[in-house]
């Protein structure tokens, strides 16, 4: 299986995605923002579809779209306004625009499917370099904001009193999420970013690990999901994305059962 270049690239890509999905997802679940990340991937989809229509690389549109969406959600998301409404609106408008772009993008229906459901086996070496760069950028960003972000997530008023700028932190984090989403969408597609980013993180939080450990465990689980998904896809005739999604569900269910058994 590893004799093929595209498989080696796929394993590496899954590794790069897991590195980012673990810690970013951990914060998303902690902050109750998993829905926001879901929406960002859809905004990214609109951006990518628009980019394809203009003959630009999809990843560029995906990244720009998601980052734009992240900043917009961060700015609009006042504490008073129900965030889920804002996010839901952003999500549906984005999907609408994406649908419009795809409608005119008659010549490449396959790239539309790749956008929605991912195409890990189609990743080339130059794309891999891009994914690596995005991973490094995300991890660096998160390493800088992690401490105040944790404080602000758990104890916002106290953090504010200590001089933490909640709004700025919120926007910075959403930008990191956006970049992570763009990267992850290459592997799972925009519709299933959730499975690699949220499922492992939710499982690790449920098992009650301390923050840094929890992020590490989430990363390992995401890696397990990605690699096992690739292996299973190799030996069966089903797409990788299918297996990753199924494994995501299993990881979370197993963690829940595990905690039940231990009486937590």
């Amino acid at each position, binding site marked *: 299986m590893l004799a093929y270049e595209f498989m080696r690239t796929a394993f590496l890509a899954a590794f790069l995605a897991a590195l980012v999905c673990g810690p970013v997802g951990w914060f998303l679940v902690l902050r109750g923002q998993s829905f926001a990340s879901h929406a960002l991937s859809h905004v990214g989809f609109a951006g990518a579809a628009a980019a394809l229509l203009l003959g630009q690389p999809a990843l560029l549109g995906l990244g720009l779209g998601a980052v734009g969406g992240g900043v917009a959600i961060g700015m609009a998301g006042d504490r008073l306004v129900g965030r889920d409404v804002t996010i839901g609106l952003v999500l549906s408008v984005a999907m609408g625009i994406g649908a419009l772009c795809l409608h005119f993008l008659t010549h490449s229906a396959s790239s539309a499917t790749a956008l929605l459901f991912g195409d890990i086996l189609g990743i080339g070496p130059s794309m891999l370099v891009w994914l690596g760069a995005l991973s490094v950028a995300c991890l660096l960003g998160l390493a800088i904001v*992690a401490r105040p972000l944790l404080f602000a997530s758990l*104890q916002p*008023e106290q953090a504010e009193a200590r001089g933490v700028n909640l709004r700025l932190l919120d926007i910075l984090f959403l930008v990191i999420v956006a970049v992570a989403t763009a990267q992850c969408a290459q592997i799972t597609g925009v519709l299933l970013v959730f499975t690699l980013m949220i499922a492992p993180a939710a499982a690790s939080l449920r098992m009650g690990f301390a923050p840094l450990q929890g992020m590490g465990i989430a990363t390992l689980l995401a890696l397990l999901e990605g690699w096992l998904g690739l292996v299973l896809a190799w030996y069966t005739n089903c797409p990788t994305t299918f297996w990753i999604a199924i494994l995501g569900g299993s990881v979370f269910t197993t963690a829940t059962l595990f905690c039940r058994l231990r009486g937590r």
Partner: protein
Amino acid sequence: MSSAAVQVSGVTLLRQQRPVLDNISFTIPAGSFVGVLGGNGAGKTTLFRTLLGLEKPSAGQIWIEGQPTQKGRMSIGYMPQVRGMVAAQLSGWSMVAAAQQGWKWGLPFYNEKARTDIDAALAAVDAQDLASCPVGSLSGGERQRLMLAQALLDNPRILLLDEPLASLDPARMRETAERIYALAQARGMTVLMSTHDINPLMGLMDHVLYMAHGKAVLGRVEDVMTTQTLSALYGAPVEVVRAGNRLFVVAEGGGASLQSCMCVGHGA
């Protein structure tokens, strides 16, 4: 500016054109233990946030230990009014640790000294045994102890505690008040603590800050908690009733003035 821990002079704060704090002035000497009283919406939380520099008053000045107030002042420990807590699965220790120099950029990594500080804060509120429990499995009162431990990190000289006694049973209220008092005495801290029930603080408070209709009076308990002073503050006749060594504030006429009346004390 000698020994005033908190000095407030002519502070007015408007919310939707309505003064929530209306030309308030008072001075709290360092080392005092102050109970902040007032009904729902009297402005206690707003006052604390203003002292912390989180709300900008439209008029007046605030000095904390002789310095104009500003965000991020390390000498103040703040315990916000309890809201729902996220992250039910995190342990009590992680919860408290998140507040340890949590404003610094970087990773949430705790060295030996940080760990010692966190353990000491937990020990100060008798919460060592809560450290390993998931926060979600703790009772409301136990969570409040963790929040108090967070406020004690970094050895503040002033503590602003917003309703630290809320949702405690009467015995626990007194116990918690005494614990805070003992801590304040031992560390020479100034404490402002808001509460709806003055009785657990009786005998511990040096001063009471009574708030109503955006106004506030500060004074000794026996001076403030009188029928005349509080009637003047409310702008309506209220009566301070003593039952044994407990105090209650009741509206005299009942009816329309009842809403602005607050009952200090938990049933006779």
